[in-house]
């Protein structure tokens, strides 16, 4: 399309429609050429374009005026003061070691998991590392020392500086032997009895079919273990006997009786 043709195609109505896009430089090149050609010859549209440009300038100045203010001179000082106060409050808090301890525990557990996955040997790292490091057993299949207590101890040396956690190789190679042991829930104060029972069972000197609870009762009296089977009496037998009570208070409908009562 020639320059002359463009002048003809752009009338005032189309020019006003494109006015805002033209003022914000949003017109495509071809349409912009048409627009400029029209504005060049149309005084009214030229004047309107000037008004739109002034309006856009006022908008820009108005927005800039809103944010032109300087911050108060003591803003930075107040922020620094708040930082110092927060640090002091955390130092005084008894919970300040919780995240550190949690962090150390996570690392230790991650390492334990890695060791387990690599060696295929059961490892007990998280709970017993400290004790094992103090009293290392003589034999070992895997070596590992993670000194979790250092985390808290060394952090407490300084005040409110950022922490950097590093992993160092230690010169002394310590060993940790962990074997899978039977898991037994031990009531408070009964560890000794449990250990005696375990030794007794392992030595095969007594009946191994006894339950742990029965064994515990026997341990206190030094009586031999005795297995007393539980006998369930059929309903018909109970009715015929009539004396085998123990169920209801009147003894009319007994369902279960002990072995002593049957005799």
């Amino acid at each position, binding site marked *: 399309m020639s320059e002359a043709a463009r002048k003809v195609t752009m009338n005032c109505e189309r020019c006003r429609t494109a006015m805002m896009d033209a003022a914000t430089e949003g017109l495509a090149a071809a349409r912009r050429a048409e627009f400029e050609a029209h504005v060049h010859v149309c005084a009214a549209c030229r004047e309107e374009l000037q008004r739109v440009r002034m309006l856009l300038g006022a908008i820009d100045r108005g927005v800039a005026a809103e*944010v032109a203010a300087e*911050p108060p001179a003591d803003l930075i000082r107040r922020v620094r003061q708040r*930082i110092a106060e927060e640090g002091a409050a955390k130092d005084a808090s008894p919970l300040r070691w919780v995240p550190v301890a949690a962090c150390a525990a996570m690392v230790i557990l991650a390492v334990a998991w890695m060791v387990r996955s690599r060696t295929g040997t059961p490892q007990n790292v998280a709970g017993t590392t400290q004790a094992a490091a103090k009293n290392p057993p003589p034999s070992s299949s895997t070596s*590992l020392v993670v000194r979790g207590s250092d985390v808290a101890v060394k952090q407490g040396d300084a005040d409110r500086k950022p922490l*950097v*956690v590093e992993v160092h190789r230690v010169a002394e190679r310590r060993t940790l032997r962990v074997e899978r042991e039977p898991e037994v829930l031990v009531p408070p104060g009964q560890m000794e009895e449990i250990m005696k029972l375990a030794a007794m069972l392992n030595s095969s000197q007594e009946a191994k079919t006894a339950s742990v609870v029965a064994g515990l009762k026997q341990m206190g009296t030094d009586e031999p273990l005795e297995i007393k089977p539980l006998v369930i009496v059929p309903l018909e037998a109970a009715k015929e006997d009539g004396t085998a009570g123990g169920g209801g208070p009147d003894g009319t409908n007994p369902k279960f009786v002990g072995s002593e009562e049957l005799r």
Partner: protein
Amino acid sequence: MGKASTVGVIGNEVSGVLLSGKAMDALAAGCGEIVVSRDDSLEREFQARLAECATLAFRVALGVLRDRAEAEDVAQEALLRAYRKFHWLRDRQKFRGWLVRIAWRMAMDHRRAGRRRLGYEQGAAADGAREMTHAAQNAEEIAASREFQRRLNAEMDALPEKLRIVMVMAGIEGYDTREMAMLLELPEGTVKSRLRLARKRLAERLR
């Protein structure tokens, strides 16, 4: 020796420890120990950036709230939040843009909370129009400029957030769309088109 990566922890918070593969190998295969010590390099770096960027945070908050006192409060909280999270920012070159987004978000939240809303609605037009009134020649022009500023503020508030933030940033940073694109982490073309659309929409409504 293997060193834990990204474990500088500012303040007294330890949110997590990321060990490098080398460090994990050292712990798993050989003997190792975890040592936590203090390093104030992060603290120093933040303090330097605080001095550089406090004005930016304040102006972003002011662009949303148009109230100096509220903007000061929000800027202070935004800088504190940036301090607390500073150790998580991997690319420190992006600190300004990161801070802009924090301040913007907090200012928007503050504004939505509606605190002292009426006060700023009435007072902002007069404060914001201060600069324009210097150029005004007479009482009528001053009144007109104040009225214009009031309408402009109302239309700015009505803009979608993504258009409004580019307008505010344009007011703060001038018209350097490249810098704005970096700050807002947007393509430069997107910033240009949003800025154009925002100005066009405001002009159409204020015409």
